[in-house]
């Protein structure tokens, strides 16, 4: 059986890749996808803990995270579409004023 620590380590690596993606990339869509990657790696850790404790609570938390992620993506992409309509760009550096 694979130990829980291995899963947590994998989750940490995926999370770091997501963080670096947000910091390095300037395309809003790819940054947004990196955020999804981070959420996903947290889910992996939750499910690993759930198995380690032999209780399903961690899985239910993951279920909630997935639902919240769906809502977040819908609103985020809507924001992105409306920014693109106003500025004709998806580069985050071009969106630096408070006025639309």
């Amino acid at each position, binding site marked *: 059986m694979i130990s829980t620590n291995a899963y947590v380590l994998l989750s940490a*690596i995926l999370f770091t890749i997501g963080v670096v993606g947000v910091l390095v990339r300037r395309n809003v869509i790819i940054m947004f996808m990196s955020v999804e990657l981070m959420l996903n790696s947290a889910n992996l850790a939750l499910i690993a803990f759930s198995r380690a404790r032999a209780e399903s609570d961690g899985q239910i938390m993951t279920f909630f995270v997935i639902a919240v992620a769906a809502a977040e993506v*819908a609103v985020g992409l809507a924001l992105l579409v409306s920014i693109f309509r106003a500025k004709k760009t998806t580069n985050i550096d071009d969106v630096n004023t408070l006025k639309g």
Partner: protein
Amino acid sequence: METFLFITTAIVAVGAALAMVLSSNAVHSALFLILNFCSVAILYFLLRAPFLGAVQVTVYAGAIMVLFLFVIMLLGAENAELGEEKIGWQKPAGLILGVALLAEIGYVAYRGTKLIDAPVADATNIGAPTTISAKLFSTYLLPFEVISILLLIAVVGTVVLTRRRVVAREERQS
């Protein structure tokens, strides 16, 4: 068998995540992220969470990423990272901070409390749909209902955000 599956899937997941961050085309990024989600779903199956694995594929790979692809195609934004960097030191700084974070998490994972895994026999049924539903509709009923309201708010918010202003103006005039 389990070790082999875990190692292969972990390598695919990490490789897909790296490729997602590094590829210059947003559609390729989305495809690599789908690959990552699918391999994480396989890890869920290994962790005795079949229900969550199927939900992961249905919701993340099947709905969320379709939405991403749809928006990328709609905006024609697959190659939108041209033009000069406005803040030159951003990329190296991001990389250094990322490595620092990995070192930090790795240190905590290494030095922190070693988890004692429960015996396999106890963990066989924790991911079955009946187990999850029984807990979801008793202990976690309130969060479940709150999530449904959150989703409703998201739907309304999305419609409001993407609604074109022109339509509103026409309605005011008529």
